[in-house]
Each structure stands twice: as C-alpha cells, then as structure tokens.
C-alpha cells in the first residue's frame, strides 16, 4: 500500500474522529448549565423553601427583604428567623441549633448556591421592580426542599432574556428589551 494511501484511508479519518470526540467530550463537560444545574449543597440548617414559601405561602420578600432596595436580595439575618421560631417548632433539633446561634451571636455560614464573578454587578432592584418573578432565574423555589440551582447565571442566560424578555415579564409590561451594554453590569 502506498504511503499516502494509508494516510488517507486510516490516519486522517481516525484523526478526524479523535478531534471530533475530543471536542464533543470537552464541550459536553464544559457546557454552561451542566455544571450549574442540580447543584444543591448541604446547608447548616435544613431550611425548606417548600414548607415556608410553598405550603405556608410566605412572600419571598419577607425574608429576602433587600431585593427591591439593594443590589443583593440578602440572606435573612438569624434574628429574623427567630421572630417566629422563638415560639414555633422549638422542639426540632434544627431550630434548637438556630436558637443557639442566635443566642451566641456566632455567624451562620450558608453555602452559596448562586454566585457571580467579581466583575459582574447584577442588580436585583430593576428586575424585581419590573415585575420579573424570582422563579424566572432561581427556578420553582417554592417546591424545593433543598435549594437547587436551576440556571447557570452565565452571560448567555442574562443576554437571552435581555434580548427577548417577554417570557419573564408580566403580561402587559411595556419593557421590550434589557440593557446590552457592558457598563450595565461590568464596571
């Protein structure tokens, strides 16, 4: 067999397949929301959004009260939990742990579920004030026992909605587009 013939018959196709496989494998492993979806770290207190936001129908803003005032929605302070749990379900071990933290003043270290790089300055205020529901980005939190990440919060996620926000916005909203310039989020 001629030297070139062999190269064309075996080496090239094998090489092409190898390259394709590599690209596909790397691409699958690094696809934006593969890492993102399903991340549900264990929290110091097994707080259930399903119970509080779902069954009890508490407003999200009751606890995440910064969401319309601040860039960050904020994790509620321990004393806010204690405003109910001083008397409610004080027999549960998790609530006793909570009470201990509240009494000692020790900080409570919640595991981050959603995070953004340091050069991204997402602001909750305009989104919430435009009537976009929390679920648009954070998933159906009121059905989650353990908060699980639904969206990768990558720039593609942001831009997809900013370019066509009608699905996230309430009916009748006059907003047709979100900002797409760099300085809207990066500064």
């Amino acid at each position, binding site marked *: 067999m001629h030297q070139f013939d062999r190269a064309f018959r075996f080496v090239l196709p094998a090489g092409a397949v190898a390259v394709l496989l590599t690209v596909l494998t790397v691409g699958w492993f690094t696809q934006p929301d593969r890492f993102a979806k399903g991340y549900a770290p264990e929290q110091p207190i097994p707080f259930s959004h399903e119970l509080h936001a779902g069954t009890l129908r508490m407003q999200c803003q009751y606890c995440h009260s910064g969401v319309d*005032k601040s860039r960050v929605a904020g994790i509620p*302070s321990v004393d*806010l939990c204690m405003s109910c749990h001083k008397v409610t379900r004080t027999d549960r071990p998790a609530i006793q742990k909570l009470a201990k933290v509240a009494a000692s003043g020790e*900080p409570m270290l919640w*595991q981050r579920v959603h995070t953004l790089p340091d050069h991204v300055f997402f602001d909750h*205020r*305009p989104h919430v004030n435009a009537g976009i529901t929390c679920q648009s980005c954070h998933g159906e939190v009121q059905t989650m026992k353990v908060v699980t990440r639904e969206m990768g919060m990558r720039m593609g996620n942001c831009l997809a909605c900013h370019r066509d926000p009608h699905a996230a916005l309430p009916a009748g909203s006059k907003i047709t587009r979100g900002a797409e310039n760099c300085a809207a989020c990066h*500064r």
Partner: protein
Amino acid sequence: MKTRLPEHGPIETPRFWRTLEERIETPEAQRAAHDEFLPGAIPTGPDYDDVHGLPPQNGVSRRDFLGLVSAAAALAATVACDRKGQGTVVPYTKRPVEVVPGVANYYASATHEGRRVYPVLVKTREGRPIHLTGNDEHPGVKGKTSPRVMADVLRLYDPDRLRAPKAQGHVASWADVEAQLHGALRGAKAAGKPVLLVSGAVVSPSRKALLADLKTTLPTLEYLAYEPAVGDAAEVAAQASFGQAVDLQPRLDKAKVILSLGADFLNGEDPEAQAAWGAKRRLKSAKDEINRLWVLEGPLTLTGTNADQRVPVSPSRLGAVAFALAKELAAKGVALPAGTDLSGIPAGAPAGIPAATWSNLVKDLRAAGRNAVVLCGAQMPAEAHQASHLLNAMLGSEAVAVRAAEPLATVKDLEAAAQKMASGAYAAVLFWDVNPAYTYPKAAQWKEAVAKVPFRAWIGQVEDETAAQCQLLLPENHWLESWGDYATPGAAVLQQPAIGTLYDTRQGEDLLLGLLKALGATVPDGYHAYLQVRWKKELPFGTSFEQALHDGLVKGDAKASAPVFKGASVAAAAKKATAAKADGLELVLFPGFATHDGRHANNSWLQETPDPITKMTWDNPVAVSVQDAKALGLEEGDWVSLSLDGATLRLPAVIQPGQAQGVLALALGYGRTTGGVAKGMGVNAFPLVGLDPASAHVRGGAKLAKAGGKKELSRTQSHHRMEGRDLVRSLTMDEFAHDPQGHHHGPELVTLYEEQRFPDHKWGMVIDLAACTGCSACMVACQSENNVPTVGPEQVARGREMHWIRIDRYYEGELENPKVVHQPMLCQHCDNAPCENVCPVNATNHSPEGLNQMAYNRCVGTRYCANNCPYKVRRFNFLEYTAYKTEPETLANNPEVTVRPRGVMEKCSFCVQRINDVKIRAKGDGRAILDGEITTACMAGCPSDAIVFGDLKDPKSKVSQLVAASRAYRVLEELGVKPAITYLADLKNPAVEATVGGHHEA
C-alpha cells in the same frame, strides 16, 4: 533627562509648557512626546523580569518558571475540577435596623487638622467607612472637604496600626498598662512633681474642658499644644497684634481684592475659601463681578498659580513690603489705627517691585476698602503677619474673621520643655498624637532630654519615632472610631464613630477620663457620656442629642467679641522687618502637600498624589529658582547638599519656574524612619527648622552645593504629554469680553461614520478652568471611589501611575514668573473614540448613553487603546498592584467597583456605578432622573465646584447650558473625536496697566 538651562532665551517657545525640558525642547523631551509610554515603562527582552523591573537574568527566567508552574497548576485544576467551593454567605446574626446589605449608609462626623475643622459625611458599606466627603449641612464647608481628609479613610485600615497596648516593648493588657499609667501619675501627684502632656491643637470644646478637669485634679500638669508645621510665626504675631491667640478665617465671598503674602489658601486645605473663590470665578459673562488676586511670595504656591498678579518676593522681605504698603495707603488718606508708628519704613515702592505694579496694588486695595483682604502664609515671618493684621485693620476688611483661639505652643516652648526634662524636673511625660522626636529641630537633644524623664507614655496610632522612646504605648482609635466635638464658625460640630474599633484600641480622651477617675475625680463613664452631659446642657431648646448627632452639627454661632488689633505692636515689627538679612540663600519650609507635618506620610494615596506644583510624588526635593539653578549649574534631579546652621541634608533638586531668586523651598513631613509606606521616602527637613518662633520656617543663610550624581525623579509632569497643541486656554477679562474664542475657530468636522444616536441620556461634563485651583482633591476622591491602586515611586518614575484623573499644570510665558493654568484631564468619553476602533477584542466600546465603557474581563492587555488615545488617559496594570493585598487594606475598597488585576487596561468610567444606582432608584420610584442627582466622585470632591456632570440630552440641565457658554471649548476638537467633556477657558483678571506676570497677548 538633561535639563541645562539655555544661556540665552529660547529662540521660539510654545505659549504653554509644562516642564523645563519642554520649554527648551531637549531631544529627550521631543522623543518622549512621540511615545505613549516612557522609556522603561514597557519591559523589553524575552527574559525581562517585569514583575520587579529587574534586568534580564541567566538560566530559567522567573517568567518561564512561573509559566511552567501555572500551566501545571491549570492542568491539575482542570483534572480536579469540581463545582463545589462556591463559598459561603454570612448574613448578620442580629441585623442592625438601619443596615440593608448592599446599600450605603451615611453618617455625619468630623475631624480636624491643626485648627481647621472638617465636618464630614462618612459613606459606610455594611458598617465599614469607604468614602469621605464634606458634610453638606454645614453652612461653611457645604459638602466639601480637603484631599488629606478624604484620604484619611485609608489610615483607618493602615496595617501598621498598633493593635494592642504595649508595656516595656511587650504586648500587654489594658488593665496592666492602665495600672502602670495611673500608678505613675498618682505618684507624681503625691510628690507634687510636674507632669508634661504634649498634644496637637485643641479645637474641641469638650476636649478643652477635659484638659481643664485634668489640670484641676492634677495641678502639676503642664500642657503643650504643638503644631510643628504651621503654628509658630502666626502665633507670635497674633500675641503681638491682638494680645491673644487668634484664628484668622478668610471670608472670600466678601472680597473683591485679595492680597496674599505667601498665603496658600487655595491648596485644598480650606474648602470654605475655595468654594468662595470658585463662586467668584465661574463667570457666565464678562459683565459678572470677578475678584482680583494679588500674590507676593517666594516659592510658587498653588495660590500663586491662581494669581491675577504675582510678584516673586523673598519671604523675609514680605514684612517690609507690606509695611511699605501700609505707609503708602496711610499717605493716601487711609486712617492708621491708634498708636501705629511707621516712621522706620522708607516711603515709596520697595526695591524689586515695578512702580506700575506697586501703584496698581495700592489703587486696588484703596478702592476695594472693606472688600479688600490681606492674608499671610502661616510659615511667613511674624513681621509679615503683623503687617497683614495692620493692613486688614486699616482697610476695615470684612473679608477676614478674627476669632479667639486656644494658644499653640511654639518651638521655643518645646525648647524650654526639653531643658526642663533634661534637668530631671518632670516625673512623667505623655505624648498624645504628636511626634516631637521627629518634628523637633534638634531631635538628638530632644531624645536625650526625654530619656531623663522616668515615666514616658505615648498615645497614638502607628508606632513612630516618639513611641520608640516610651515605656507605655497606648494605641489610639482612628477618628472614625471616636467621639468628639468641635466649634466652627456657623455651627457646633459633632464627631461620632462610623465603625466600632477594629483593634484593641481606645480613644485618647477615654484614657484621660480613666486617669481622672484614678486620680480621684468623679467623671462620667467614657468620653461619649462626658460629651453627652456637656452637650445636653448647651443644646438649644427642642434639639435632641440624637438629632444633633444625625445632622453632625447644631447651627448657630457662639457669641464672642472679636479680638482688637493693637497699633502699638507695629513699631517693633516694622523695625525688624527692615533690618538687614543674612547672606546666602533663604530657605522656606512648608508642610508637604501629601504629608503635612509627617502625620499623613504613611498614606500611599497621598504619597502618590503629585504635588500640585512640582508634580513630585513620594519625595521632597528642594526647589531652586531658575536664576539660582543657572548660577549653580544645576540640572533637574541633581543631588545637592543643603546646609544651614550646622545641619546638612543630601537631597535632589528641582528647578522651579516662578520661584523668587535666592529662595529655596522644601516640604516638611518626609524622611520618616517608621511606617511601612512612609519609611525612607524623601528627607526629613525638620532639622532645618529654626528655634526662633518668629521665623522658624523661613531661614536665611542656607548654602546649596552640588553633591554629584542625579536622582531619577518620580515626577508625573512630563508624562502623558500632548505636544504643542491647543489644549488649555486662558483669557484675560478683556479677551473674555471681546473675543472669548480668540483665533480658535471651530473646525468643520466631517465624518465617515454614522452619527451616534443616544436614545435616553448622553452623559457629559463641563470643567471650568477658571474655578479649578489645581488642588487635586478630585484625584483623591476618584482614587477612593474607584479603587485606583498606588504603584510606588519606582513605577511612577516609569510613567506607570494609575490615576484616572490627573491635573495637568501648564506654564505660560517667562521662566522667572510664568502664568499657570491647571487642567484636570480624564477620559473624555469621545463619541468617536479612537481607542474603541483599535481594540482587537472589543473590550472598550460605546454605551448607548455616551459612555466609553471598559470591560476588564474582556481586556487582553494589548495596550493599543492607550497608544491611540489622544488624551493619554488610559492606564495599564503593568504589575499586580492589588491581588496580594489582604485585610485590613482591602476593607477600604468600594464594593461597587471591580478591583482590577494585572494585565488589563483601565480608565475613568464617569463613575458608572453611581449613574446606574441613580438610574435604578429613579426607575423604581417611577420618576425621571433629576439634574444634579448624579455626582461623579471628582465633582463631589471639587471644593471650588469647577466640575459639573449631567445629561446633555436634557436642554435644561446645568451641563447643557454650560456647554453653550462663550468660554467653552473642547480639547483637540479638531480631531473629530467629539469628546463629552467641555472645558471653560481659564480667566485671569490682571490690573490693566500691569506689565508683570509674563502676560503675552495671544
């Protein structure tokens, strides 16, 4: 660069110039003008160690090694890749009601520097102060403060702060050190032996009361309030003229004619004076009233650069000149105060002042009368001060308020204290927030004397030269962690802590209260309670202490009779003023712009802010006049030895245009031997301060000689040069009235590109050069707001400073007495920005609101944009300036702005974080953005309100109206880049017939 002054004047000179090199067109300067980066700014050679700026090395270079290591690490990281480790969120356990995470809170507080009080507004995020501005409720400062106060937020997070008390060199508990302190002073009280307390100026009524209480309980207490860089001559003169210590406060809103005798009231220290100055200079039309500033001074000061008429006069002659002025005015019919004897003063114009100038000055002062004011620089000899007191009394000036003040100790009092210490008379000595082991002229003698005192305690923040001598070190709170109060004209001001103590420190007043208690007095528990007790008695009816704390002040003026000028003091002063002067050069020692008397030397923001005149950073070279430099054959940066009275300093020299012949100028506050930032920067000039308080900072008989060699100066004035193009414009009032645009006719701009469209807003800025004094407050405000890193002297020398806004200082006219124009220069946010076209990764592009935005995460560091920027305002992170920083330093960062890493370009963003915040809040409230609601940090920090920011799409906005003003022009408009910043031409108001000031008709 070689800067030999030409034997004959240059053949052709540019109208405006910034450096001597530029003026005499050395080949190096011409070459530098063509390159964006200075020689050495860009590392060359494959092995160049550009992290440390070291020359190439043999073997595997650091760079290659790091490359291999990081490749290996990246590989390892990829293999071990996991999505865990997103970090933790830590909410408050008990959230303070007023804190919403992510929202800034503002608290009113106050601080002081010497006798000057600064009511401030502290911006805090999640409880940590990050930015300071003036308190806008205060009737005097109206929301402005000084650059040094703004930078003081960094001192709170100084990693060198002493974090726990020390006894005999070892960390100890407060109980231990207090037991020692109380024991020693109880012993002194029992033995009836004197105790010395040395501290700074007292401007707080409660502190004054506390000291009085201490004096009652400990009758042997001796107290010295010492301000080493500003006090002495003014104090001596005030005692002579008024028989008591006074504080003279300019009221420039009432002044039509201002005569400065070496007074530097426009250097940013006095926001009140600067606001009044700005208001008189931001003219809409030539018919508006303008003031006139006459300056007689030796060194060129910032005030001198803003003068309408400036005459270089050596400081020792200022007294004689001012008395001659008084005599001339008296001869023209202005009444002299009773008992004034000016017979020793020769009549007529003093030597060196042209007759026409003299007669204009006399005419101006006489015509303005009550609206004229004479201000004298704190460092000038006492006779000059007394002459200024006399002139103000003669004119009946309403433009200066004379207020009684607490007396300051002079260098003579310290000398007496040193002698008494050396004799072993004192049982104990306490140093509170002062550093005499560094600031006393004869430091060796002082230290010897202090060592003879058996018990020595020190209260302060960063261990300094004085602390090295003390057995007990008591770490003190920063003022942002302390309580206090101040008396200011127009309001009583309260100081409250904006943060709890970061370390195991206490407030100085609390320590004194503890001492009082230990000595048997009944006092409230803690200074907060002490303050409350005093204030509740004095608060006006209906005002609560809490309300006063919230506002930071209670408006109203304490009734006090103004001290009266005593004419009898004049004869002696006049005689002294005309006495013969020593041979040799005359040295003027002034507080450093960045360091003051050394107390700010450990602040890198200030050290890197260029001196507004010499544009030096991190150093204090001696400034030599052009004439003397020529005579001595000196070049810029030459090492010289400066000797006076047995003390000799070796330091670099700079040649200062406009400085009077025979005068040397040197900044105090450098050459510290302690402090991570301050140590080894510049030389300590305090050994040259005189022991005669009447003229401690102006010394005759100095000798200057070349010491061989040259120092590379960390100087920014030659950086980012913009060739001889028409960048600054300065108009006389005459030109303003008749032809404000002069020969500059707007070029017809043609463009191949589509016109930019801005649907909602178009942000723009107007900078009024007539109001800008060059004080650099904007630079510090920007540094604090935008997390601008400092780079250090070696990097500044290579042109790698990172400031987003700089002040370009241009000279115009003759070398010996040039006119000066200051021009703040920042990103112009051009509509057709040249930087945007050349970015290969589209990291810099245009926003639909007219901002030239910079996406750091996209930047790959090609630096093409900087090369293509006609304004030279882009800054590249050549090295890693921030990532290695840890707490507490990082706590000073603004969490709303990215901290940039190595390898990316950055520049002014028009404070886009503030724009976005206001936009979002307005949207939430369902309203339009108000004009003036968005303030950039530079605008908010500018004490003379020279900067206006706003929406150019809104025809009613202030900025839109100013853009159409007759003085308006855009820098390099002819390039067609369409900058969003409009400058208003500088204004000078010279006396019509005058020939001084080097004015050339354009």
